[in-house]
């Protein structure tokens, strides 16, 4: 097997810390000026770029409210309009906050444009395994890009797929074309680590490392991930079924088309406010729901509440 690529990692403070290392490295060592973030994206992406004083913080179209899916053509237009060598943050799977992921074919096109524009790529990979229940399926986009020769960064988080939220376990994976480039990049990233917090916390990383290296524990862990992902998938199906059974206005296929922890339901701000006030159901103003908050004991309640909000409040 050809070892065409060199991959190495530097432990990071969960996903956030790993992203921060990549963003800092690209600004300080590669003179990166512009960055591209999906519209919408996890709010902290933008905060981090701002704090790092990136000159040109841009958004690329992503969420299409009319289809409750991906604005794919808008995305590519915005990519092409950005400066060459921009830093682009791509969500590896289970897009936060929308739950909308590109299809394989769309990823292939995205990859072509990324290469055309010579973008620096940072994959935010916070949900591997958690999205579909399958580690390989969830890594498809990342692996495709690597197979196409794209040198890139992957900010991995083990917060969700290991449930180790507060132990801050993450990895900044660097994929470079040569061992020399990998060493140089890692050496600079380590200097950034040194100047920020010297070295990472051991505990959580030890837990993850032990699990990944022990065949039995690894197997058991994969089972746990499947359990978590399946519960979320079941909740998505159950919510959609109930809304359709109630005859709630609108289409509800997006609830099951979307993937991962979050769903952009399409609820308006006014409808959200109504849910909070009248039903004590708490969600984001954007209409983003965390599917993990649903359970068999509250599904009926939530579905009825949503139905009520949508029929009563039409703006």
């Amino acid at each position, binding site marked *: *097997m*050809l070892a*065409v690529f060199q*991959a*190495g*990692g530097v432990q990071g*403070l*969960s996903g*956030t*810390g790993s992203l921060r290392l990549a963003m800092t490295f690209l600004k300080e060592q590669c*003179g990166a000026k512009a960055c591209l973030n999906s519209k919408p994206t996890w709010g*902290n992406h933008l*905060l*981090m770029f*701002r704090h790092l004083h990136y000159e040109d913080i841009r958004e690329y179209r992503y969420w299409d409210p009319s289809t409750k899916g991906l604005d794919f053509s808008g995305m590519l237009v915005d990519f092409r309009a950005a400066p060459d060598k921009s830093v682009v943050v791509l969500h*590896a799977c289970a897009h936060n906050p929308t739950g909308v992921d590109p299809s394989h074919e769309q990823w292939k096109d995205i990859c072509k444009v990324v*290469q055309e524009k010579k973008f620096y790529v940072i994959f935010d990979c916070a949900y*591997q395994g958690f999205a579909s229940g399958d*580690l*390989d399926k969830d*890594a498809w986009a*990342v*692996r495709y890009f690597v*197979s*196409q*020769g794209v*040198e890139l960064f*992957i900010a*991995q988080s083990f917060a969700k797929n290991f449930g*180790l*939220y*507060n*132990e*801050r376990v993450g*990895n900044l*994976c660097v*994929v470079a*074309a*040569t061992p020399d*480039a990998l*060493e*140089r*990049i890692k*050496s*600079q990233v*380590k*200097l*950034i680590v*040194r*100047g*920020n*917090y*010297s*070295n*990472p*916390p*051991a*505990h959580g990383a030890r837990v*993850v490392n032990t699990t*990944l290296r022990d065949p039995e524990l690894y197997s058991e862990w994969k089972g746990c991930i499947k359990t978590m992902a399946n519960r979320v998938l079941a909740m998505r199906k159950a919510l959609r079924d109930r809304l359709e059974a109630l005859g709630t206005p609108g289409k509800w296929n997006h609830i099951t088309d979307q993937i991962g922890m979050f769903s952009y339901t399409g609820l308006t701000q006014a409808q959200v406010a109504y849910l909070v006030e009248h039903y004590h159901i708490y969600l984001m103003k954007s209409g983003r729901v965390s599917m993990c908050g649903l359970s068999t004991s509250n599904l009926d309640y939530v579905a009825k509440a949503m139905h009520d909000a949508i029929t009563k409040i039409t703006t």
Partner: protein
Amino acid sequence: MALPFKVYRSCPSLLQYSSKAAGAVLQQRTNAWWSQVELGPPDVILGVSEAFKRDTDPKKINLGVGAYRDDNGKPYVLPSVRKAEELMMSKNLDHEYAPIGGSAEFCKEAANLAFGEGNEYVKNNLNATVQGISGTGSLRIGAAFLSKFFPGNKVVYMPSPTWGNHGPIFKHAGLDVASYRYYDKNTCGFDFQGAMDDIKNIPDKSIILLHACAHNPTGVDPKPEQWKEMSQAIKSKNIFPYFDMAYQGFASSDFDQDAMPIRQFLADGHQIALAQSFAKNMGLYGERAGAFSLTCISKEEAERNMSQIKILIRALYSNPPIHGAKIASTVLTTPDLKTQWIGEVKGMANRIISMRKQLQDNLVQLGSSRNWQHITDQIGMFCFTGLNPQQCEKLTKDFHVYLTKDGRISIAGITTKNVNHLAQGIHECSK
């Protein structure tokens, strides 16, 4: 540990299919991307440890690393800390996100330890205290805050010399650095007059970095009367004091004594910033337990400052690692464990103090004509021996003693078994 990559390697079909295309693409891109990225300089202290590892001489001694070792040269996990960890693990807590500022209990205990039991700051909510990633991370939070909000001259005046990482931390945050005289290489002691002269010339409203105790790397601390004068001079120039306290308890074995400069400054009416580390005094090196504090004039000011500090933390790493902080607060809030811990810290400090004495005694016995008073005058983990780079090189080459070129040795690396060999080496190299 890179999941996508590790599993990717077991998918040969994916590789083989596209390797030709990938090769062609790589040719185009290999030169374009990372040519301007230079290989970063290797870590100096790590370099010392690596050279030590390669050495096969049985008499070798590693005096480079700044981590405590017991009399067998082994890492020391404090029994009280181990007990606290087990106690905590037995509670089977979940791993839900900590608040951005970290564990409130830990922050309260850390502040109380620094400012004193019953201090008015914690009592009246006048401190903005957050969990930081050990001392470095706490320094970095403060640096970020000062960089954004300090209304004065954004230059940090650091003692000369200082810990090698202070400069990079402040620079990463966008602050400039300068220095004030500190170490007197003629006396291997504190250049008090030089420090005072330099302080008087620091532009008003600048920032001054102060090591609360056990100065790193020299081991030279000002005397209490000297601290008093420095406090007055700094206050008269309206300079903002930023304390780095990484060795509370570890220096003199007395927690209150080690924190005295901080409490002196507070009593004198300064507002301060403080970075605390529990790496050494709890042996929690790898768990990164630390705290950053700002003392404020009102509860309302503390709340405003907290809100801004949290935004800075959010953009750095969202929220802190909890394990080490939980262990620390378990120790600090469990009376038996706290008493035990204080005793164990005393044990560490006393071993260091006794190794200093033994080294000094041995040098005298060997008939060295040099003055080695500074070995016992200096305090904490480190000692600036006064050896020059050539002498250090000889010490390493001929005696297999590993230390940094500036002549700094980590007393923690000295044991009753190796102190004779070390004394011989130092004597031979300094004749």
